């Protein structure tokens, strides 16, 4: 069964273009705005959207994403609400959507039910930050791909192991640390990505710490796609529910997308 993520990277590959993946937190500032944001991001050049399912204790995230999750939860965001939000996006767009989450909300909802309903809503992939392959939950047959993370600290035998079970694309964590903007990008990135390609044919997206068009351009060179999260979330926080928010975020996303694609 073909998945929108696979189709997306196949198209990017055929066009010899690099992908741009923005991250936003569902429900920040509200789920209605999340639908608008996702559609606007697609127009601005996004190839895939990483949609955060807010969790109270996001320990792999920096303060920017944590505050976004807090705002979303305070606004009453629920798992069902996020699925409905994906449904609404899906009614108007075929952009691939990866849910970014922690395990506990999925576990409480029921892993099988979660996968089933995620697929029904139109979710294409799941990135569970605190679920290493060793602890993998028995996957139901849903066409929702588990995206795997590889970190700079992941040793070579483990890279091989992770690459074997990975689907969709590999997510390489560009910096040791939590999510959040950084001033510089690790210089060893090119070598690291070359190493990953030895073990996997999957496209490689790079994220964590990329916040400017210039960084996006540099990262996109060796990678297949660039993920930008906190810098966008920060902008959403700044403008909140004001009418100009979507416009500001779109403009910034447009610059990032252009930069990623120009490399």
């Amino acid at each position: 069964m073909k998945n929108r993520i696979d189709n997306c990277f196949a198209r990017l590959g055929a066009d010899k273009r690099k992908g741009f993946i923005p991250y936003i937190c569902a429900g920040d500032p509200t789920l209605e705005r999340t639908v608008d944001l996702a559609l606007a991001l697609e127009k601005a050049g996004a190839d895939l959207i990483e949609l955060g399912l807010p969790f109270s204790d996001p320990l792999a995230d920096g303060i920017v994403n944590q505050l976004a999750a807090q705002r979303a939860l305070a606004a009453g965001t629920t798992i069902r609400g996020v699925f409905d939000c994906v449904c609404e996006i899906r009614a108007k767009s075929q952009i691939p959507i990866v849910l970014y989450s922690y395990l506990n909300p999925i576990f409480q909802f029921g892993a099988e039910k979660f996968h089933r309903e995620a697929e029904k809503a139109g979710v294409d992939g799941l990135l569970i930050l605190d679920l290493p392959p060793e602890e993998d939950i028995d996957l139901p047959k849903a066409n929702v791909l588990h995206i795997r993370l590889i970190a700079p600290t992941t040793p070579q035998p483990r890279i091989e192991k992770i690459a074997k079970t990975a689907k969709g694309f590999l997510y390489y964590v560009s910096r040791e640390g939590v999510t959040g903007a950084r001033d510089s990008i690790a210089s060893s990135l090119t070598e690291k990505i070359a190493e990953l390609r030895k073990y996997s044919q999957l496209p490689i997206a790079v994220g964590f710490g990329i916040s400017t068009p210039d960084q996006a351009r540099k990262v996109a060179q060796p990678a297949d796609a660039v993920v930008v999260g906190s810098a966008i979330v920060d902008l959403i926080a700044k403008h909140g529910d004001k009418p100009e928010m979507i416009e500001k975020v779109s403009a910034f996303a447009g610059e990032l997308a252009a930069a990623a694609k120009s490399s």
Partner: protein
Amino acid sequence: MLGARHAVVAKEGWALDVFCFQMPTTQTMPDVHGHFGPYGGMFVPETLMSALHDLAAEYERAKTDPAFQDELSALLRDFAGRPTPLYFAERLTERLAGGRIYLKREDLLHTGAHKINNALGQILLAQRMGKQRIIAETGAGQHGVATATVAARFGCECVIYMGEVDMDRQRLNVARMKLLGAKVVPVTAGQATLKEAINEAMRDWVTNVRTTHYILGSVLGSHPYPMMVRDFQSVIGVEARRQILEREKRLPDLLVACVGGGSNAIGLFHPFLEDRAVRMIGVEAGGEGIRSGKHAARFQGGRLGILQGTKTFLLANEEGQIELTHSVSAGLDYAAVGPEHSYLRDLGRVEYTYATDDEALNAFKTLSETEGIIPALETAHAIAYLVKNAPKMKRNELVLVNCSGRGDKDVDQAAAAFGLKEKSK
């Protein structure tokens, strides 16, 4: 009678060179990935996986290395003050008119609580791994003080993460950590207590993992911590078992300990697990009562879930969002319980109950007045179980309670609760 008891105390107190702590090496639990039945495991971001595997491997090497055993034993004896006495609480026994109550005096250890047992073990591991920067979380501040202490002893840089609410209620320990040269970082996120401090410490570790060792303070978090901290704390039960056998010529009928993450409880219980006739009670923080929703009794109102690296019982809503907790005691004010406790509860080997804030405060006062021992508010939860239940016990029932920490840090808070504070101008 009195003379005979004195002689026993003196014999133990002056035993010069008998202390040698053998690390347990034949445990069947957890499995290699840290599972205690359906609990435990390694639920962490990928960046930490390799550091945790390295730590587990180094720990396996260390615990069978005689040089490590010797060094740890020497530090536990000469630096921390082990063995700690097993003390017959004569007046408390008389007051409660039931049971025959012994206290394992972990409160007499250097830094004032059992936390130093684990901190010493882990700093030696950090040394073996060549990690010179130490971080830790702390709730009540006892683990933070123990970590700052061992970091000072070994000349390591030390950063302690502590919730702002806890920093306020445990000011004395904040000052102690600073005097020991540690940097204390206030955590303001969420409810600003232990859980948020652990989140921040994990974030620091994710960022600085190559140079830094995280001394986690309880039987919580990802494998190998629940196993490793248990093993370091099992010195409590090993000693207590020997001491009660020497003293009473038989095993106790009941063990009691408070359970936050649960390291002092597991440390006492573990060496008795095969002694089937020994009953064990873990006491959680009942806060303002279970019905109020303001508590930290995971086995009362909790559910199975995943938090901060481990699968265990925790307080979360149906959406999986972690709920706010409440306890008068900062050290028990945490949303998850150590995974091995969940396992021992399933087996029916350990029973879990709770004591409310009021019961703990009353027990705090009772122990202070009857024995001249001011316990930590955490420990007071274990004492509260006795105050409630000892009167129903037979006079010859042997009860052994872990007096896990002393209450100096809580004096301000307790004095305020009992209206004993002198008004300042």
